[in-house]
């Protein structure tokens, strides 16, 4: 069981801010593939990974980061704070 969070336009494309997923994926990229296979809105949101950033348990991570032990994964565009 993994909490998956979406922010900014990723959230808008997917249509919800968070969901809990049952996944067998061992990496972030594996999780993305599972989500893309689900529905068109996920395929659209994840169509260009270079435009996305990911955090695993609230730390910035790469798409090949392992999911073992992770409780929370978040997807969002590059940050624009400051």
């Amino acid at each position, binding site marked *: 069981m993994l909490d998956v969070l979406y922010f900014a336009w990723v959230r808008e494309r997917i249509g919800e801010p968070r969901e809990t997923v049952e996944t067998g994926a061992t990496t972030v990229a594996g999780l993305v593939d599972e989500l893309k296979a689900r529905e068109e809105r996920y395929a659209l949101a994840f169509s260009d990974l270079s435009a996305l950033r990911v955090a695993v348990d609230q730390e910035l991570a790469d798409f090949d980061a392992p999911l073992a032990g992770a409780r929370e994964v978040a997807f969002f565009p590059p*940050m624009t704070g400051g």
Partner: protein
Amino acid sequence: MRIRVQEEPFDPGAELDGFGAGADVGAVVSFTGMVRGDGGLSRMEIEHYPGMTEKAIAAIAGEAVARWNLADCLVIHRHGPMRPGERIMMVATASRHRASAFEAAEFLMDYLKSRAPFWKKEYGADGAEWVAARDEDEDALGRW
């Protein structure tokens, strides 16, 4: 070190009151960022990632304190709706010397811009649009 993530406005003058007091502080630098009303912007909305935001800012501020041996460091960043002229965020640094206070403040700004989980959405004459990150902002991290 004082870090606040909040929806409410803040008063930079009041925040600086007493900041950096102490006989070994020779320099205090502050930066305040405001919403500009460029190109018909009527309002802005800032989304953030509660939990991660505080951690990310604490890590960035902690690195600034360690690297420039700061006597004190302050970061305030708002989220939620804001109008032109309103303050978005501020940082302040207190140090023995001028150069380190300036450098640490610029470091904080560069990292907050690209490494703290905030996203700006602008509402203007042509509708709403998420602000795109700029390559220069990412490149700016290279200087540290």
